[in-house]
Structures are given as C-alpha cells and as structure tokens.
C-alpha cells in the first residue's frame, strides 16, 4: 500500500517528495482511511443486521429513514449523541470513563493488519495474525473495567462472564488458526492469503493448479474443521447469539453495559460491531481467501508490485476494486451467517458454554492441529524430514492421501467427540445422583 502511494505521489503526480514526507503523508492517509472505515462498517452492520433479522422474522425492518431506511444508523447515532450521559453515583468515575475507550481502541487497532485487497494492507506485520489476537484480547480488560466501575451486580456478573468467555474461547480460536499457520508456515496475513491461490486446491499444495483465486483453505478437511471451530469461537469472542451470555438481556439486563448511556454506550456498541466485522473479515481472510477470487491475482500481476515495479497503476486500481469487492462480499456473507444464527438459536448457559469450549472445541481443534501436521507431512515433506511413505508419489497422489487421511481423522474425531461429550454430560448427571445416594 505504501509503495503504491509512493509510486502515485512521486511517479504519477511527479512531485518528487522526500522520503519522510512521503511516509508521513501515507501513514496519515491510511490511518484516516481506517478510522473512517471502521465506524462506517459498524453503521452499516447495525442496519444490515436489523434488516436481515427482520426478514427472518417475517418483518420488514427499519425502512423509514431515507430510502429503504438506509439512514437509520445515522438517526440512531444522532440519538446516541444527544442522550444524557449518566454516571452512577457509586461508580468509579475515571475507570467508568476509561472503559469504553479501552474497549474501542483495540478494535480500531486491529484494522492495522487487515488486508482489504491485493497490496492493500495498512501494515504488513510478519506477526500479523498474532498481533490481531493479542490486540483483541485487550478489550477483555476494558470489559472488566466497565463491569467493575459501574458498581452494579448485573454489570459485574456480565463482565466476569464476558471475560471468562473471551479468555476461554481465545484458545480454540488460536488453536484453529495455528492449524492454518502450520500449513502456510507464516503468521503474516498476506502470506496466508497468497497461499490460497488456486482452484479448489491451493497451488502451493499442488503446483500446477490454475490460479483462479479459489484455493481456499475451507476446501480442505483441516481448513474446514478449523473454519467451523474458529467461527464458533468467533461467535463467542464477538458475543454473538448462541454465546451472547455477557449481555444476555433476558437474564442480566445488558451485562457490563447496564450502567452506560449516551455515547459511552454507543462506543461499546461500536466496539462490538467493529469486532464482529473484524471477526467476519478474519474468517474470510484465513479460510476463504480474503480478497482472492477469480481475476484478482491476474490483474494484480499486471500492476505495480514490489516484484514488478514497472507495471501499470491502472491494474492496481482494478485489482484493488475487485479484491475489496470479493473481500467485503465474503465478510458480509459471514455476517449474514452470524445474523442467521442469531435469528435461529437460543443462547447457552455460561457453564454449558464453558463445557462446550473446553471439552469439545479445544480437543477438536487439537486433533485438527494434528491433522494439519499430517497434511504438511504428506504434501511437503520428503525423506529429508523423515517422511518415507510418500517417497516416489506424485504430487496429486500426495495431495489425495493428505486429503483422505485428514478427512478421516477429523470426521472420526468429530463423531467420537460428540459421543464423548454426550457421555460426559450423562456421566455428570449420574455422578450427581450417585453422590446423592451416597449422602443418603
């Protein structure tokens, strides 16, 4: 992105600015874009969610403000801004004030590593994925602050639930991503996207596959399991419906947000929706190729890239537009799925959530990690690494073997775990009964 800007300013416009000015300018520009885009996504998402879920419930949804109600989020925002900001008397005022900031800041920071299109990543960190999750874990502190500072039992209960949930579901989320990281061999988000070129099969796994930008991880057994596990964990991280326990309105009113009003409440809302956007985006990026899609790779190859500095800038723009289109399309589809789940399911109880996370999701993702290692072993390792079975196999055969083996493992583990999980619950009930009889 910065190289493109540099090329634009010095090449196309011919200004010949010094490097530091260029850097400053491009950083400011990109930060501005990110800061503008994040709230816009949130505004769109609130509208989108309300319309979609209304349709699912045979309703129409907000359609009065502007054409088809498109200005509804703006109206909501105005309402938020004009509402009175109430701070409870017994609250810890400073912490109460800081909490929304601590919750919002990381969500905006997370945009720093999200690539929107080919070459359009604000900062291409080599540890991008880790950065993403490290930053996302900060907001747990903000939630805790909010819950504690409000000096309200519902708030505290909600905050403790939220933090317990976020901390426990970070583990399966990261474990499922590590499976992908093992296959790619890099934490850089750009690398992960680049790996997913191909057609159904990634052309890194099986060289020679035509690049249509469709070699997504979700088509592999490892990727699919990781996707499902990650998406479930993302629902918990983003406090979406089957796991929206922290703000379970039918139980603890609004959780940690109970004592917030006005724009502070709006900030929590903002953080939540921006986080949802980011989780959908990261799902799209890691498992569905991000901006990868038919045509983007070819277009980008013609443009100005670090590898090809003499390309045509027009192709960059075209690839960017197409890439952003694919990326946003996938992201919105995932948000649709989130809304769909919200429309369909009740929520779990906190202990059931913990049970599910620790007793089902984590073993499952661990098994998937093993499959990922097998996948690497089958597709990439040779005798040098001690992989002697595949010696002499053609790449297709190796790929097929990897596919079959991982599929068998993942499916088997899944079915076995459902059984074990059900059995463990029955066992617990039995143990309780036994205890009773012992007490008698």
């Amino acid at each position, binding site marked *: 992105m910065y190289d493109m800007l540099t090329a634009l300013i010095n090449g196309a416009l011919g200004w010949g600015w010094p490097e530091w000015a260029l850097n400053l300018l491009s950083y400011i520009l990109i930060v501005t874009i990110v800061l503008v885009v994040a709230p816009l996504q949130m505004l769109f998402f609130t509208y989108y969610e309300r319309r979609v*879920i209304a349709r*699912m*419930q*045979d*309703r129409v949804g907000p359609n009065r403000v502007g054409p088809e109600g498109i200005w509804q989020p703006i109206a909501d925002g105005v309402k938020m801004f004009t509402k009175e900001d109430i701070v409870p008397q017994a609250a810890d005022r400073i912490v109460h004030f800081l909490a929304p900031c601590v919750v919002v800041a990381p969500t905006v920071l997370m945009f720093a590593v999200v690539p929107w299109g080919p070459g359009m990543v604000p900062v291409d960190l080599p540890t991008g994925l880790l950065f993403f999750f490290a930053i996302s874990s900060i907001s747990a502190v903000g939630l805790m602050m909010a819950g504690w500072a409000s000096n309200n*039992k*519902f708030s505290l*209960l909600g905050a403790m639930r939220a933090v317990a949930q976020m901390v426990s579901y970070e583990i399966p989320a990261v474990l499922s991503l590590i499976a992908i990281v093992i296959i790619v061999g890099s934490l850089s988000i750009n690398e992960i996207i680049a790996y997913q070129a191909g057609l159904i099969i990634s052309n890194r796994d099986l060289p020679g596959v035509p690049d249509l930008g469709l070699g997504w991880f979700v088509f592999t057994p490892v990727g699919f399991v990781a996707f499902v596990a990650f998406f479930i964990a993302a629902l918990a991280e983003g406090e979406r*419906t*089957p796991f*929206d*326990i922290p703000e*379970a*309105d*039918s*139980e*603890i*009113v609004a959780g940690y947000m109970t004592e917030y009003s006005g724009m502070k409440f709006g900030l929590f809302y903002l953080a939540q929706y921006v986080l949802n956007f980011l989780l959908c985006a990261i799902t799209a990026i890691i498992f569905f190729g991000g901006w990868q899609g038919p045509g983007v790779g070819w277009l980008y190859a013609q443009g100005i890239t670090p590898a090809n500095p003499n390309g045509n800038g027009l192709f960059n723009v075209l690839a960017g537009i197409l890439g952003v289109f694919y990326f946003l399309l996938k992201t919105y589809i995932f948000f649709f799925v989130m809304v769909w789940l*919200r*429309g*369909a*399911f*009740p*929520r*779990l*109880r*906190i*202990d*059931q959530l913990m049970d599910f996370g620790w007793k089902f999701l984590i073993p499952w993702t661990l098994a998937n990690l093993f499959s990922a290692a097998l996948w690497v072993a089958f597709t990439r390792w040779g005798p040098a690494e001690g992989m002697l079975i595949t010696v002499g196999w053609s790449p297709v055969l190796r790929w097929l073997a990897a596919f079959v083996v991982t599929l068998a493992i993942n499916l088997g583990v899944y079915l076995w775990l459902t059984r074990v999980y059900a059995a463990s619950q029955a066992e617990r*009930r039995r143990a309780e009964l036994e205890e009773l009889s012992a007490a008698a």
Partner: protein
Amino acid sequence: MLQTQELQVNIGPQHPSTHGVFRMLVTVDGETVVDLKPVFGYLHRNHEQIAEANSYLQNMPYTDRLDYFNSMANNHAYAMAVERLAGIEVPERAEYIRVLMVELTRILNHASAVGFMINDMGAWQTPLAFGMREREKILDLFEMASGARLMCNYFRFGGVVRDLPPEFIPNLRELLRALPAYIDELERLLRDNEILLQRAIGIGILPPEVALSYGVSGPVLRGSGIPYDVRKAEPYSVYDRFDFDVPIGKVGDVYDRFLVRIEEMRQSKRIIEQVLEQLPDAKGGHINPKARQNVRPPVGDAYARIESPKGELGFYLVSDGSTKPYRYKVRAPSFINLTPLADMCRGYKVADIVVILGSIDIVMGEVDR
C-alpha cells in the same frame, strides 16, 4: 463460580424477562440459586373489589384484563359462573362458538408462550415472531367476531354478543389448513435444537407430588405427568362431545412443558375441527344479550372452572340477590402456578430462572389482579 459468598440479586421489577412487573429477590451462591423470593403486586388493580361494585354484566370486560392473552377463556369462565348462579340456559350454537373461541385462544396462547419461553432462553425474537404470526391471524378472527383483538368481551350470559360473521368459518378453515404445517415448523425450529435441549432438559423439574401439593394446573401440571384436564375431569360446556387426547410429560422439566404445549396445540386443532363439523346452524342460536343486562341472580353462590390455556381458571361468585356480586373471587392459574417458582428454581443457575419462569407461562395481569 468460585466465590462462596451469597449475593442478593434483584431481578425485576423492571426487567426484560419477568413478563411484566414482577420481582424476584434471588439469593445466589456464585451462579447457583440458593433462594428465590417472588415479589408481586406491582400490577394490582383491585380487580375483585371493583367487580363487587359493578353489576354482573359490567364485569365481563374486566375479566378480559385478567389474562390479556386469553380474554375469551376468562369470559367463558365468568359467563359460566354467572349462568350457574342465575340458572341461565345457553343455546347449543353459543356453546359451540364458545368452545371454538376458547380452543383458538389455547392455540394462540401456547404459540406465543413457547415463543416467549424461547425468548427468555435468549433467542432473538424469532420463535416469538413465528408464534406471534399465528397469534395475529387468530386475533384477526377474534376481531371479526367480537370487534376487538385482545379485549374481546365476546361472551354474554346465555350466549355470545353476536353470531359469527359469514366470513369467519371460511377463514378459520383456511387457518386450520395451515396450522399443522405451522406447528410442525415450530417443532422443527426448536424441538431438536441442541442448544434448546441443553437449556431445557432437566431444568426446573417439578415432580408430580410437589405439583399436586402446590395445586398447580394446566400444562405445568400435565408436564409433570399428571393427566389432569378440567375439560376431561369435569366436562363443561360441550367438551364431552369431542375426542381429544391429553398430552403429559415424563419428567416435569421445562422441555416437557414445552412439548406438552406443542401437543396441546395439535389437540386444540382437533377440537376445532370437530366443532366445525358439529356446529348447529344459526337458527335459534345465540340469544339477544340485551335482555341480560340486569342479571339478578337468586341468593346463593356458584363456582365455575374451565381449563384455560394456563391452567384451571375458576370464578367464585356469591350473590345476595342484587344486581352486583356480593363476593367475586378469581382462581387465577398464573398465580397458583407461580407459587412453586422458588422451589423449582432452587439449585439451578441464575440463567435458568428466567427459563423456568417462561415455562410456567404467567401473565402478571392475572397474578396480581
């Protein structure tokens, strides 16, 4: 989870899922409920005292306001009580129309009760919206017949306000055609849903002995496995002319109550079909309600009970020979079903309270009166 100190949490009176202004003073140990004290009376409207100052007919619209979901059922019970007191005969067609209306009420009540219960479990309005959709259509029918959707005020002593309008029966038949698909869909949405199973199975168990000792009735009692139904135990109106089954649960938990409600919707549909078959034609049907505006029953008392969708609804009236009831007492199923709440919730988690409350299906208008 880890703490062992007891904490008092006030759920309500202003709370999203207390079904009105109801307050539960919950003592929790971590997330486990140790004790629960229901506090109600926030919606007390002096119903019984007002009724004693009104004439018999004037009370009819007030009974609508008891359980505002099932105004038809309330009307039925009250009309029956006054008829019993004053010895008024009800023409056959009117009886059939009454049964029809009350069974429609049962369907709409159960549809939305299931929706509300799932809402308390945290579903974001969808099952409720689906339940409401069917409810709306039945309410449209009510409006067609009585002129109002919720506060129907349709029954009169010795009949109903007016005969069914001509477009009522065809529309009802259409509704009945769609009803099985609708109930099946509701079941498909929820019945096997693993999350719902997790939340509902083994939660809020009300053993049959306890249920009996609390005097619980309706789907809550049947969910506990006791096939007690006033329509069967003491057939009133023309209920002895219909075939229908009584669904009961096995364990008495939230899931049983949910399933019993769904099955009862099917049975109600069966009854309505039989009503439509047997409905006598309009000749000599309902009587003119104007003649009954000054009911002056002889001195005495009467108790009439019906199987309202929420349970056994009874009206006890004492007459001193004037146009006003001397004593007027409502046996409200919501109120009596609510009494075992504390016992039902003890030992479960905080999040289960609202689900258990939702599965009892209360209406505060009836609880507080």
